[in-house]
């Protein structure tokens, strides 16, 4: 009985191996698989699809796969080399970034977006109203984060009627720590409760729900993201950025650089890809356009990536050597 089972297992196993072998020989040389992080937000998913097209079509012998998970878990996986590259890396939100860079486990390859913003946002109708939807402006003079003090009653906390509610950032992000310090420093804690939501999905759901009802909402958001592309929201002004003071919550956020970070193993594994990742740069305007396209047409990220490379065809020449750009163009025709 045991022998029979064992035999069946061996036969089944060798068949699988043989089939796998067939697949390998068809594509020719050894295929190197590049793994990128997929932390679940739209802009990164879009960038991953763009990179997939370029890596698989523009270069030979590469396969591209995603590691889907939370940003923290993916970051740890990249440190040990299980994940190769993090496209659109919010390094300012990674507490250990400088240490990890210094330890040599990861390398910074390039800057994807130079001008990303984050901070406290309100829907535009809170300040200006929206005649078409019949929403009155409840806080016409609200401009800065400090102004929030006077408007707590318009952002009610339904669990605590005596105060307003500010939605903080994702627990554990640097932005959340800094915003919480700011919340205390500016004396907003006297008028508001600071609500933390465990994930972006639920944070955006709360903003979406309020926006849908035309209710005031104040809380953390960042650009570029589909929310900032889809909803008309305004960043509240703050003191101009100053390093040192910023960490204590005294000034606003700097324009963030979203980077492309790779595991240090990538350079050995795929030396010819480095040139592409180093020059891969989009700026937040192009990304926001692509995200809006994604949302309006209901296209998949893959379709949006093809649209992006066709619509902004010139980026290929900036990112790639001539013959590789030609190969990509041919593939997406």
């Amino acid at each position, binding site marked *: 009985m045991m022998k029979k089972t064992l035999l069946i297992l061996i036969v089944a196993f060798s068949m699988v191996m043989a089939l796998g072998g067939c697949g390998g020989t068809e594509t020719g040389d050894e295929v190197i698989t590049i793994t990128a992080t997929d932390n679940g937000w739209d802009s990164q998913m879009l960038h991953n699809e763009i990179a997939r097209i370029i890596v698989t079509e523009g270069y030979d012998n590469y396969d591209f796969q995603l590691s889907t998970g939370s940003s923290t878990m993916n970051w740890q996986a990249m440190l040990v080399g299980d994940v190769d590259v993090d496209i659109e890396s919010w390094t300012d939100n990674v507490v250990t970034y400088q240490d990890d860079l210094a330890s040599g486990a990861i390398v910074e390859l390039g800057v994807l977006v130079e001008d990303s913003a984050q901070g406290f946002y309100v829907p535009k109708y809170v300040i200006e109203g929206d005649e078409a939807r019949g929403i009155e402006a409840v806080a016409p003079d609200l401009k800065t984060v400090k102004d929030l003090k006077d408007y707590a009653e318009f952002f009610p906390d*339904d669990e605590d009627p005596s105060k307003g509610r500010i939605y903080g950032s994702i*627990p*554990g992000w640097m932005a959340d720590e800094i915003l919480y310090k700011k919340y205390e420093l500016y004396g907003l804690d006297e008028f508001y409760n600071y609500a933390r939501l465990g994930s972006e999905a639920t944070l955006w759901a*709360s903003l*979406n*729900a309020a926006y849908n009802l035309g209710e005031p909402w104040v809380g953390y958001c960042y650009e570029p993201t589909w929310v900032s592309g889809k909803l008309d929201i305004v960043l509240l002004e703050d003191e101009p950025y100053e390093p040192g003071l910023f960490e204590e919550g005294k000034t606003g956020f700097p324009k963030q650089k979203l980077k492309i970070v790779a595991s240090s193993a990538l350079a050995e594994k795929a030396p010819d890809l480095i040139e592409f990742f180093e020059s891969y740069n989009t700026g937040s305007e192009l990304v926001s356009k692509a995200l809006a396209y994604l949302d309006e047409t209901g296209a998949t990220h893959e379709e949006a990536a093809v649209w992006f490379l066709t619509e902004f065809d010139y980026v290929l020449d900036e990112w790639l050597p001539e013959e590789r750009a030609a190969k990509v163009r041919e593939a997406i025709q």
Partner: protein
Amino acid sequence: MDNYLLQFPEAWQFDVGDSIDIWIKTVSQDHREVFTAIKTAVITSVKGIYSLLEMTPWWLLIFIVMILGWRMSGKKRVGALFGAMLFFVGSSGLWVHMLQTLSIVIAAVILSVILGFPLGILIAMSKRAESIIRPILDLMQTMPTFVYLVPAVILFSIGMTPALMATTIYAVVPMIRLTSHGINHVDTEVVEAAKAFGSTTLQALIKVQIPQAKSTIMAGLNQTIMMAMSMVVTCALIGANGLGMEILIATNRTEMGKALMPGIAIVIIAIILDRLTQGLIKKSEATKT
């Protein structure tokens, strides 16, 4: 087109995602008063439970748990152990978080009993009800929580209300199942005897079947409490404060040590609640015979 045998034909695929999104949004707009009323009711009751717990001095709560542990197990050292464990939670600086978590868990368990007990009886009494409700229960238990977490936020905003909803959806199932199981498995001869002496179905249910099924129903309560505890971290994702939020903050920063303490605190509460209700089951079994 040529390989429709190998790939699912595209023409036969459909997408209802958008229409469901729109439906949820319209419902949340059109029936706002209903959701606000539910929200107010939930917030008031959870806050009521919380302030009751908060008013109780910490040493009194530990003392009560010690006495209960002693009574339920019959051993003094079990009571002492429970007291020491709760004291440990307090000395880890997690007392308030524990109370926040407990108030949602208690509210969810109460709601589960209010909903689950009658439903369980209904399933036990009527085959038709069973054939309708049972697949729904399977659905509630296997549907990934995240799928209904986001619509819950859209409908009920964030915080205790969606947390209570999600916990109840998940935790009510064993209460229903074990109630019906217990009543169905009461000896038919006992029920027949009761009927032979002239009791109506209702009388047989209240005076014979439910008392006979008590230990199984208590086991259902025990399972409901355990499942409610297991939802604590998930609830933090929708802004419910408490031990789950502490874990979430710590894990998001990869501070594993810091996440361990609230994790242990959850285990401690779960063990104490489990042993206390298990004790109740044993007691009800003892009185039965």
